[in-house]
């Protein structure tokens, strides 16, 4: 087989050029800046602050109480992108946290111990409430236990059952709704001094569904050839508002409408997405990616794909904070049940066979040439079982799978040359396959 592989010589990955920004990206940047400003002013404005996690975030409910959400994972990844995570992690390890555990947690703790300065440079307020939405990741539980010790503030737990049987049962839904009614909502009422306003929640949920419709249209645009989006590297920008503080707001509705319009305009122009190598319309490889990206060398990592004309048409990381392209929408007519279904439907709350089936569907629906797993050291939730997923997917789809290893925000685990070499070999394998089938 090796003789069939054309030997290609590629320039080594270099520092990538800055990305040109779309209008929607500018809009998102402003939204985020305003949000962090509100957070910085929270001690004066007396707005209550709720820390919670991306998977299973109850942003509509938090918003209905006029609380401000803080997502520690987002702060960690932003710290990674700004090259601060290495120092924060070292700080946490110095304080006794093991080298073996999730680096998001350590990055967050290091950031807290270094003054809790947000990614935009403003100071983050302390939490009034830690909403421990225990969805799809065991580490969340420990993370907020640690933060509770540090901040001495109340925690409310929302235990989200795992979809081990591959579906949501009525008992699972009832369990989550019971917790919302008996634990979460009363805790929010107590912290804010406000009564639960179901109408306000319904209105937020209506707005969520609108934004979700547009986001799904953006995801599905990648079925076009050339794909107008990169559903992984570009995708992580697209999920920013809906995975964080803006789902259920008019801001998010406007953002996703604009993003969809931009995507549709690119389809009309036959144009690919903006990447570190400019607009990539000549797309040599269409890929599906499983696993989170590396944040500390994000643009370099992306560049290793874009300079080869590789575009990611679908990814699972962009479904961790909500899986909408299999049909779920927040339903204002059943406000608490829909929140329960949302939490249970997040990607890492699916069982492994469910994850494989979703990837298989992506490979087929998006006519991918291959799929790639970026296995991150930090995240057992994602990573345990990925090597079996790789085998199963290759069997089911017949397309080649690639496997690389890195970490989210620990720069010690991003080996540029190693990853680049592996990607090179993988692309060569795709070439060989293409020339065989041609």
């Amino acid at each position, binding site marked *: 087989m090796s003789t069939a592989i054309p030997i290609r010589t590629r320039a080594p990955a270099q520092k990538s050029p800055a990305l040109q920004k779309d209008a929607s990206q500018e809009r998102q940047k402003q939204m985020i800046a305003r949000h962090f400003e509100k957070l910085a002013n929270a001690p004066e404005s007396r707005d209550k602050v709720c820390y919670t996690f991306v998977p299973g975030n109850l942003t509509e409910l938090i918003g209905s109480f006029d609380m401000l959400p803080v997502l520690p994972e987002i702060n960690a990844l932003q710290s990674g992108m700004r090259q601060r995570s290495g120092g924060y992690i070292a700080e946490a390890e110095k304080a006794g946290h093991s080298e073996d555990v999730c680096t998001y947690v350590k990055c967050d703790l290091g950031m807290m111990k270094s003054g809790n300065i947000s990614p935009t440079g403003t100071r983050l307020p302390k939490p009034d409430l830690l909403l421990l939405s225990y969805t799809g990741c065991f580490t969340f539980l420990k993370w907020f236990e640690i933060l509770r010790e540090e901040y001495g503030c109340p925690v409310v737990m929302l235990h989200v059952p795992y979809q081990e049987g591959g579906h949501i049962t009525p008992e699972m839904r009832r369990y989550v709704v019971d917790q919302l009614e008996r634990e979460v909502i009363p805790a929010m009422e107590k912290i804010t001094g406000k009564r639960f306003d179901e109408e306000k929640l319904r209105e937020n949920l209506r707005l969520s569904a609108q934004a979700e419709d547009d986001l799904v249209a953006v995801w599905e645009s990648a079925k076009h050839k050339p794909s107008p989006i990169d559903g992984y590297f570009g995708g992580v920008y697209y999920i920013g508002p809906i995975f964080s503080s803006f789902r259920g707001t008019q801001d998010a509705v406007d953002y996703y409408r604009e993003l969809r319009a931009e995507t549709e305009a690119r389809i009309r122009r036959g144009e690919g997405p903006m990447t570190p190598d400019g607009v990539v319309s000549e797309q040599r490889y269409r890929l599906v990616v499983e696993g989170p990206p590396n944040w500390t060398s994000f643009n370099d990592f992306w560049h290793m794909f874009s300079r080869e004309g590789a575009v990611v048409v679908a990814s699972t990381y962009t479904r961790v904070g909500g899986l909408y392209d299999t049909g779920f929408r927040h339903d204002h007519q059943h406000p608490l049940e829909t929140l329960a279904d949302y939490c249970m439907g997040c990607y890492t709350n699916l*069982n492994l066979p469910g994850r494989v089936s979703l990837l298989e569907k992506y490979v087929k629906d998006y006519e991918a040439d291959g799929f790639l797993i970026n296995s991150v050291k930090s995240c057992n939730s994602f990573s345990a079982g990925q090597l079996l997923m790789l085998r199963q997917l290759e069997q089911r789809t017949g397309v080649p799978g690639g496997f690389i290893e890195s970490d989210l925000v620990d720069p010690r685990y991003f080996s540029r040359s190693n990853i680049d070499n592996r990607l090179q070999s993988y692309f060569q394998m795709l070439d060989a396959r293409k020339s065989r089938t041609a």
Partner: protein
Amino acid sequence: MPTMTWPQDADTVQLVALARQWVDDLNLTAVRQWKAEQPGRLAIGHLPIYAPRPILEAVGVLPVAVFGGGDQVDIIRGDSYFQSYICHIPRSTIELALGGQYDCLDGMMFPSICDVIRNLSGMWRMLFPERWSCYVDLPQNFDAKVGGKFYVSELRRMARELHERGALELTDQRLRQAIADENRRRAVLQRLDDLRHKEPWKVPASEVYLISRVGGMMFAKDHADFAEAYLAAVQKRPARARDNVRVVMVGSFCEQPPLDLLKTLEKAGCDIVDDDLQLGMRMIDGPIPEDTDDPLAALANAFLFQGVACASRYIANDVKGRQLIEKVRSSGAEGVVFSAASFCDPALLDQPMLETALTNAGIPYTSLKFAENTGQFQVIREQAGAFSDAVKLWGEPTGTGVTTATSC
């Protein structure tokens, strides 16, 4: 029961050797023999920590605790299923399963203790689709009307699915009996632990460990008999008091350290007077109520209200480290040895919080890491020796833990 017989006057050496023989038998010969005696019998494996064994026993199923391959298995296939940064127990479990050692198990339960075990449940479904696979979503909400209600529905589901596969139907009467048996087992283990607190030289941790662990493949009543026989033998054993440092060992609740690691600690001058090695057997503190109209609710509520603190359990309104400090005090321990499996997220994320609690309480500690197949103990021996000397020499160190070193 899987047939374990011992002479009436068996001494501790004989009983411990018997337990070891069973624990080391990765082919689960005893389970196979029990099944062969009567076709149609079901045996279900379960991973650590806590599985609701009385439910299985009540429907006539033999619960079999699975703890991977320890230091006895060469991992060949298992490593190709897991990245290097994932703990060891799932890879040896897969190795044994693919090697056929678990083919006498009609299904497997995966308690919700971490993401590795959780994902292993999905791997199981894909690798062995014909076998029963059950993820036990233990509640992290401790209100009987919320978490309790959900857990009861989960327990019912398990019983129903097992009945569909040939197990007995779950009845209140059968469950009451299974709970009574479990309570008896628990009481004997408690007596063993009480004795260990008072006279650790009579019941070394390395023995208690084997005597407890062997029960993982026995019905509760039979295990209670066996543990009682050991207790009786202990009374007759000639043993001299030792001047060792008494420690509580924490963090090895899932992947088990090699037996030689326990012996190394003992040789280095540490009497392990309490530990969480076989936490599944001790997860419920005290007896489960037997005199009740609703034994299923009693079993669920016992988990909610009598559950022992551990890294995999949300502590809700409790104070972090309270139970550990109480354990140290009630067992007369002078220090704590943290002993977590490498890459064990729950244990390692929990540890700094527990260390802070110990420091505040003035209790010294040291920490080490291991893998189930660790073979070198020299560093651990030196570290444990230094710890025990420090505690002995300085009496009660004032809080700041004695050196914290990683040994592997």
